[in-house]
C-alpha cells in the first residue's frame, strides 16, 4: 500500500539567538519523526504544548523546511517553500488554523476569501467562482446571506467554518488541522469536529488532526500518534490507545480523560515541570516525570519499536514488559 503522505526521520531545528556575539543555541522542535497517512485516513497527533506537534504539522505541509529527513507527497518529495511547484502543490494540501480570526483577512468579505484559492490556482472560470463558493458555504453549513459578511461579524464557530470552506475549495487530498477547535467554545467544538468528519467521509480526504485534547482526537482519528518533546512516543489505532495505552506518558494522558459513569480515581497526575524543548533531559525525555522511571531511563534513549500488529511505542520498560497495564 502506498501512503498519500510519508515522512521519514523529520528533524526541525530552531536557532535561538542569545545576543549578537553569543553562540546561538539550537532547539530540536521535531526530532526524528516518521509517519505515514493513507488516502481517506485520519491521523491524530496528540501532545502537550511544546511537544512539537504544530511544528510537525507545518513541516509535513512544507511550510517550514525540514533540517533533516524527507516528506513524500503522493510519492514525490516536497518542493522547496516558495517555489512555483510548492505553490502549485498547495491546491492539494491545506491547513486549518487554530485561530480562525487571525487566519482570515479582516478587510475582505468571507465569500471572497473562500473563493481566493480558486482564483489563485485558476481552477474555476471566473464566472463560476461565485457558484462554487455558494456550494462550499452550503457544505460547511454557512448561510447564503452571510457571503458578504466580514470575519469579525461572525461567531468563532462560523469563522472556523469559513476557514474550512476555504481549505476545501481546491478539493485537496490532504488536510492538516492544527488545533482546529481549541479556540472554540466546548459546545461548538463537537459541531466543527462532526463537520470535519462528514466532509472527510464525503470527499475521502486524508487528514492530520493535531490537538492537545485526547477527547477530541478520539472522536475523529483512525490512528493516534502521541508526541513528547519532538518525538513520537507511541502510535496505535485510536481504539488501542484508549483501551490499552502502553507508554507511561500515554497512560497518564488517557487516565485524565473523563469517561461517563466512571470516577477519575485512577488518574495519573504527572509530577515535575512541563517539557521544555530548550532543556531536553538526557536519556528518555520523559523520565523526570515518569512514575515508573528506572535508572537506565536516565541514560539511554528508547527507540520507537513495533510491538504488536500496527502499534509502536518508545519505552525501555516495554522491552522488559514491566509496564503495568491500566484498565
Amino acid at each position: 500500500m502506498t501512503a498519500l503522505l510519508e515522512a521519514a526521520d523529520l528533524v526541525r531545528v530552531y536557532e535561538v539567538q542569545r545576543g549578537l556575539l553569543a553562540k546561538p543555541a539550537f532547539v530540536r522542535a521535531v526530532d526524528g519523526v516518521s509517519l505515514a497517512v493513507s488516502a481517506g485516513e485520519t491521523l491524530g497527533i496528540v501532545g502537550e504544548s511544546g511537544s512539537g506537534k504544530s511544528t510537525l504539522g507545518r513541516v509535513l505541509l512544507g511550510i517550514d523546511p525540514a533540517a533533516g529527513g524527507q516528506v513524500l507527497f503522493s510519492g514525490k518529495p516536497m518542493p522547496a517553500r516558495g517555489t512555483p511547484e510548492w505553490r502549485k502543490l498547495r491546491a492539494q494540501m491545506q491547513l486549518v488554523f487554530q485561530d480562525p480570526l487571525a487566519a482570515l483577512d479582516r478587510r475582505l468579505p468571507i465569500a471572497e476569501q473562500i473563493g481566493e484559492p480558486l482564483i489563485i490556482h485558476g481552477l474555476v472560470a471566473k464566472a463560476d467562482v461565485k457558484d462554487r463558493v455558494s456550494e462550499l458555504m452550503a457544505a460547511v453549513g454557512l448561510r447564503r446571506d452571510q457571503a458578504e459578511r466580514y470575519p469579525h461579524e461572525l461567531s468563532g464557530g462560523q469563522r472556523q467554518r469559513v476557514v474550512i470552506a476555504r481549505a476545501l475549495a481546491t478539493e485537496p487530498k490532504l488536510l492538516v488541522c492544527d488545533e482546529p477547535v481549541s479556540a472554540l467554545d466546548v459546545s461548538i467544538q463537537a459541531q466543527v469536529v462532526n463537520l470535519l468528519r462528514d466532509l472527510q467521509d464525503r470527499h475521502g480526504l486524508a487528514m492530520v488532526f493535531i490537538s492537545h485534547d485526547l477527547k477530541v482526537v478520539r472522536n475523529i482519528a483512525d490512528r493516534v500518534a502521541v508526541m513528547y518533546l519532538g518525538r513520537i512516543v507511541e502510535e496505535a489505532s485510536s481504539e488501542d490507545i484508549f483501551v490499552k495505552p502502553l507508554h507511561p506518558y500515554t497512560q497518564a494522558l488517557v487516565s485524565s480523560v473523563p469517561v461517563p459513569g466512571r470516577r477519575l480515581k485512577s488518574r495519573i497526575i504527572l509530577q515535575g515541570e512541563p517539557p521544555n524543548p530548550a532543556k531536553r533531559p538526557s536519556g528518555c525525555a520523559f523520565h523526570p516525570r515518569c512514575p515508573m522511571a528506572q535508572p537506565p531511563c536516565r541514560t539511554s534513549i528508547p527507540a520507537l519499536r513495533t510491538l504488536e500488529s500496527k502499534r509502536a511505542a518508545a519505552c525501555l520498560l516495554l522491552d522488559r514488559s514491566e509496564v503495568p497495564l491500566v484498565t
Partner: protein
Amino acid sequence: MLSFVLSRLLRAFITVLLVMTFAFCVLRLSGDPAQILLGPDAPQEAIDAFRERWGLNDPILVQYWAYLRSLLSLDFGMSMRDKSPALQLVLERIPTTLQLTVPALILKIGIGIPAGVYAALHRESVADRGVIMLAVLGFTMPSFVIGLLLVLIFSVTLGWLPSGGQDGWIHGILPTLTMSIGGVGILARFSRSAMIEVLGQPYIRAASAKGVSWRDVVWKHALPNASVPIVTIVGFMIGSLIAGAVVVETIFAWPGIGRLLVVSVANRDLAVVQCLLLVIAGTMVLANLAVDILYGWLDPRLSRKSGVH
C-alpha cells in the same frame, strides 16, 4: 550587556561611514570636485595641483579610500572663502551655538517634563488642556514664525530686547526662547502620554491597591518607568544641540554653526558644508549611542533580549 554595547557601537560606526559615503557620492555627482572646491575662477595650475594632491585621476575606489583616510586624519579641506581649514572654522563656531542651545535644552527639560507629568496627573483639568494646547501650538508653529513674532512683540513693539546680534547675554534671550517653545511643547506632550500610559499599567494599580501612598506610587513606580521613552527624545534633543539652530541663528544673526551652514550653502563653500555634515552627524550618532546604552541600563529587558526573537 557587553554584546549589546558592541552591537550598538558597530551600528554607530556603520552610520558614520554611510554619512561619509553620502558626502563622497554627492560631491562626485555634483561635478568636478576640484572645480567645486576651488571655485569657478581658480587658475588651471591650481586645479591640476589639486587633482594631483587629491588623486582625482585615480580609479574611483582608490579615490574613495583616500577620501576616507583624509577624513580620518581630520583633513576636511580648506574653506574657499576664508582660505582657512574647514574644520577650524567649524570648531570655532560650536561654542557660540552651544550658548543658545544648552540654555534652551535646560528650559525644555525644566519646563516640558514637569508640565507633561503634571498634566498627566491632573487629566482633564484646566492645566492639562493648557498643556495640550501649548504642545499642539509648539508642534505646529514653525520656529521662524515664533522667532519673528517674538521680535515683533519684544523688539519692534515694546523695544525691550535686541532683535539680533551676539553682544552679551541679553541678545541671547529671544533666540533661546524661540528655540525652547517648540521643544517644551513636544516634551510636555510626550511626557504626558508616556506618564498616562504608565499610570494605566496593572502594576500601578497593584501598588496603590497595596496601600502605597500616591506620592510613592508616582515617584517610585510611575516616573522611573515613564522615564524610559522620555530619555529617548531628550537624547535626540542633545544630539541636535549643535544642529538644531539653523533657522533661529539665521533670524537673529547669531554667528553659530547654523549660520555658518546657511552661508556656506548659499556660497557653495563645499568643504565647509561637508565638514559640518560630518561633525553634526558625528555628534548625533554619539548622542544616539549614549541614549541607547542609557536605555539598556534603564530598561534591563532591552539589553538582555537584544537580538532574540
